[in-house]
């Protein structure tokens, strides 16, 4: 068994398929042999959380899982264990503030534009897509500032989230 994370829309709704997850403790079958973006349960390692934020964050238990890369965990079936209560509007605001705090200062026009984008989006943050957009804009600003900045900023964001939400950073099988 593997513990991983799953972002869902309100009401335990899968963000892309629209499928509703059963209540915590009940297994959800992935419908066949797991294949990336085709079949199976898709969940996340903590390192990938900033790229996939929605309103609800859940800790999930996965059966027969693989790690195809990109922080994604694929499994034949999974079940919700508990909702990560710390992922809230308040945390999303704090996350946005942290992204703003780490924005590159000065720099070329592209960097300044990216930074301004981040500040503008941060003003609208609630837990969900807007928070995801702040993280994205901040990572783009970091990339404009220095090569490799995008991935470095994404990792920094993931570490911040894992620490704030007291998540496991690795998911041994």
């Amino acid at each position, binding site marked *: 068994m593997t513990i991983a994370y799953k972002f869902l829309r309100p009401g335990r709704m899968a963000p892309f398929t629209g499928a509703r997850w059963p209540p915590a403790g009940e297994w959800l079958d992935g419908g066949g042999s797991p294949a990336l*973006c085709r079949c199976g349960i898709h969940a996340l390692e903590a390192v990938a959380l900033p790229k*996939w*934020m929605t309103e609800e964050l859940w800790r999930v238990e996965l059966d027969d899982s693989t790690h195809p890369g990109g922080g994604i965990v694929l499994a034949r079936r999974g079940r919700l264990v508990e909702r990560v209560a710390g992922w809230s509007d308040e945390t999303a605001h704090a996350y946005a503030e942290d992204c703003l705090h780490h924005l590159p200062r000065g720099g070329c026009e592209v960097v300044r534009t990216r930074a301004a984008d981040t500040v503008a989006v941060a003003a609208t943050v609630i837990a969900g*897509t807007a928070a995801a957009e702040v993280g994205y804009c901040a990572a783009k600003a970091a990339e404009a500032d220095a090569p490799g900045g995008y991935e470095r900023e994404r990792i920094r964001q993931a570490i911040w989230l894992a620490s704030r939400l007291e998540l496991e950073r690795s998911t041994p099988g």
Partner: protein
Amino acid sequence: MSEREITCQELVELVTEYLDDSLPPDRRLLFEEHLAFCSACGTYLEQMRLTIRLTGTLREDDLDPIARDSMLAVLRGFAR
């Protein structure tokens, strides 16, 4: 731009393949990763889904003749 990223414009170009479930897995992943942070594209995708659902319920008799002729003229223009 990150190498592993699609733009809003690319997403618009790929939306039909996405809805037809014919995107290769790697492109589908990038498509959904874009949706995760871009609320505008999320809205666009929902509008496309709604349009497909509503037009699927239309019968030929439901179309106003003027609207039908206008649409045909536009489509013929595309074909040129």
